[in-house]
C-alpha cells in the first residue's frame, strides 16, 4: 500500500515537474502547436520555441497536440488553469474552437493567433493574428510562370497548365487554388488542362503526374501547391523520358531546402515562399504588448520571397531571387 502511494506521489511530482515552469515571476508564454507533420511544421516549432526560450525572462509552456483537436482543447484548458500570461494558438482544424477560446477570453489571457486561423475569429477576442497569405501564394505561382514565359519570349504562345492541389479542404489548398485560378485569368495564353489533388505528399504527387503524362498531351507548366508534390512529380517526369525544368516548367510552394536543391540542379524552376519562421513576429508582438502598446487586429502576413533559377522575375508585389544565392542560409 505504502509503495503504491509513494509511486503515485512520485508520478504526480514528475507530472507537475514537467509542466511547471522554472521561475514563477517569469513571463509564461504558452504555445499550443498542432503536432509534427512536416519539415515546415518542425521549422515552425523550432523558430517559435527557440525564440521564446532564448528570450530573457520568458518561459515557454509548450504542448504538442499530435494532430488531435481534443488534445489541443485539453492543452488550452491546462494553460488557463496554470494561469499563463500569453497563449499562442494554431488550430489543427478550422472549426470547433468557439467554446474553448471563449474560456480563454473569460480568463483574460491575451490570445495570439498564428498560422491556421480559426473560423470563429470574428467572435473571439485576440490581441494579434499572424499567418501566411495562401491566396497571394497561389497568385504568385501562376504569375511567376506567366512572367517567366514572357521573359523567354513565350508570352503569346498557348501553354497547357496543370494544377496539383493540396489536401482537399485544407486552408492552404482552398486559398492557393483560389489564387491560382484568379491569376490564370490574367494570362490568357495559359490554358488549364488538369486539376487534381496530390494530398501534399511526394508519393501522390508522383502518381498523379505519372497519370497526367499519359492522359494529357503536352503539359507545359506544372503548378504544385507544395514543394513535396513537385519533388515527387520530378521523378515521374524523368521516368516518362522528359526533362523536368525544361520540357515542363515546375513551380512549387513553401520554399523548403530540398526544393532549392532541385532548382539549383535545374530540375525545378521556382518556389513561392511560405515561411515557417514565426519566432521574430511572436517576439516583437509580445514585447510591444508588454510595453502597453495596442496591437492592430488585422491579420499580419509575413514578408515572403520567390525563388527561382536566375532571379529577377517581377511579380508586381515581389521580385524573385536566385535560389543558389540563398540556399546556404536555408535551414529547413
Amino acid at each position, binding site marked *: 500500500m505504502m509503495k503504491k502511494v509513494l509511486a503515485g506521489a512520485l508520478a504526480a511530482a514528475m507530472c507537475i515537474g514537467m509542466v511547471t515552469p522554472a521561475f514563477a515571476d517569469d513571463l509564461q508564454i504558452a504555445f499550443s502547436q498542432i503536432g509534427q507533420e512536416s519539415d515546415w511544421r518542425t521549422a515552425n516549432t523550432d523558430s517559435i520555441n527557440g525564440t521564446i526560450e532564448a528570450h530573457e525572462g520568458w518561459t515557454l509552456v509548450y504542448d504538442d497536440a499530435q494532430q488531435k483537436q481534443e488534445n489541443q482543447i485539453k492543452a488550452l484548458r491546462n494553460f488557463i488553469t496554470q494561469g499563463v500570461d500569453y497563449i499562442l494558438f494554431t488550430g489543427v482544424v478550422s472549426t470547433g474552437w468557439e467554446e474553448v477560446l471563449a474560456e480563454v477570453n473569460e480568463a483574460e489571457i491575451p490570445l495570439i493567433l498564428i498560422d491556421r486561423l480559426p473560423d470563429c475569429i470574428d467572435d473571439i477576442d485576440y490581441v494579434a493574428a499572424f499567418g501566411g497569405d495562401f491566396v497571394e501564394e497561389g497568385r504568385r505561382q501562376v504569375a511567376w510562370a506567366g512572367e517567366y514565359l514572357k521573359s523567354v519570349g513565350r508570352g503569346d504562345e498557348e501553354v497547357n497548365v496543370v494544377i496539383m*492541389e493540396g489536401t482537399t479542404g485544407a486552408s492552404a489548398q482552398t486559398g492557393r487554388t483560389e489564387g491560382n485560378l484568379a491569376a490564370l485569368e490574367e494570362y490568357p495564353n495559359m490554358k488549364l488542362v488538369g486539376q487534381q489533388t496530390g494530398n501534399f505528399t511526394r*508519393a501522390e504527387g508522383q502518381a498523379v503526374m505519372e497519370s497526367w503524362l499519359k492522359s494529357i498531351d503536352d503539359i507545359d507548366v506544372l503548378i504544385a501547391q507544395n514543394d513535396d508534390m513537385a519533388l515527387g512529380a520530378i521523378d515521374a517526369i524523368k521516368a516518362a523520358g522528359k526533362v523536368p525544368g525544361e520540357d515542363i516548367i515546375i513551380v512549387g510552394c513553401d520554399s523548403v531546402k530540398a526544393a532549392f536543391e532541385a532548382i539549383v540542379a535545374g530540375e525545378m524552376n521556382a518556389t513561392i515562399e511560405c515561411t515557417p519562421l514565426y519566432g521574430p513576429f511572436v517576439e516583437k508582438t509580445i514585447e510591444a504588448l508588454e510595453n502597453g502598446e495596442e496591437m492592430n487586429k488585422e491579420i499580419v502576413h509575413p514578408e515572403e520571397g520567390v525563388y527561382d533559377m536566375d532571379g529577377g522575375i517581377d511579380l508586381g508585389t515581389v521580385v524573385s531571387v536566385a535560389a543558389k544565392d540563398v540556399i546556404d542560409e536555408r*535551414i529547413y
Partner: protein
Amino acid sequence: MKTKKFNWSQITRSKITWAIVAEILILLVCFIIRPDFFSISIQPSTGVLYGSLIDIVNRSAEITIIAMGMTLVIALGGTDLSVGALVAVSGAMALKLMRWDVLEYNTPGDYTVYPFFLVLLLPLVTCTLMGLFNGLLIAKGGMQPFIATLILMVSGRGIAQILTNGKQFTTMYSPFRMIGQGNLGPIPMPIVIMVVICILMGIFVRKTAFGTFVESVGVNRSASRLSGISSDKVILIVYALTGLLAGIAGLIYSSRIMSNDSNNAGINYEMDAILAVVIGGTAMTGGKFSLVGTFVGSLIIRTIVTFVYYFGIVSEATMAFKALIIAVVIVLQSEPVREYFAKRSEARAARKSA
C-alpha cells in the same frame, strides 16, 4: 458423350469471379472513354514498359504485398491495423541508416552510411519483430486482434517520427533507388518484387499444409488445437509474416520517393489491404481464403485511383467516387446477387438438359 461439365452456377457463386468481372468492367469503361488508356510502349530513354496499365500494376505493389499477409490474418479471423504504421517504421529506419550523418538538413548524395544489406535487413527484421509482438499479444495474451494491433498502429508512427527526429530525410543512394524506381529488363522492380512474393506465398500456403492450418484455426481455434495443430504457432507465424511484408512495402514506398515520410507513408494502407482481401472474396469471419482474389482486389483498388487521376475526376469528388465503385463491387459479390445469378444459370442448365 461425356465431357467435363463447365459448371456455370459454381462459377457465378464464386466471389473471385465477381471481383474479376468488376475489374474488367472498370477497365472496359476506361477503354470506352479513351482507348489509349490501354496503350503500352517501351519508354525509349529508360527501356522500361510505359502505360497506364503498367502504372496500375506497379503502384498496386505495396498494397498487394501487404494484403497477401492480411489475407492470412483475416483467414484466422483477425485483423492487422498496424501495417500502415509499419510501412512508416520501415522507411524511417532505412533512411536513418543511410543518412546517419544527417547533421541538421545537409545535402543528400549518392552514398550510404551503413552498408546496404543492413539498410534492407534491419527494417525488415524490426517489422517482423513488431508483427511477432502483435502475434504474441493475440496468441499468448489472448487479446482481440483489433485491440492488439491498434497498439502498434498508434505508436508505430510515433516510433518512426522518433527515429528521424520528426524530419524527412532524403537520399540519392542509387542501389536503394533500384527497389522502387529500378527495373529488371523492361519490368519495373516493384512488379518483380510483388510477383515473386505472390508466388512464394502461394507455394507456402498451398504446397505445404500451412494454408489448411490457417483455415482450420480460423474456423475453430480450440478444435484445431485438439486435432494437433499448434494454433499459437500458426498465429505467431502469420502476424510476423505480415509484419515482414509491411516492411518490404515500406522499403518500396520510401524508395519511390527516396525519402521517409513518417506522416504519410502507408497511411490508410491497413484499410486498403483489408478491402483488397474482402473484395477478393475472403470473409472477415475467417476460414477459407483466396490469395488470387486478394491480388485482383488490390488491382481493383489501384485501378480506381488511376482512373480518378487519368480522367481528372475533380478532387472534391474523388473520395465519393471511390466509395461508389467499391460499394458496387461489394454489392455484386453479396450473397443474394451471387445466389440470383447462380440460380439463373442452374435454371438455364436445367432447361437445356430438359
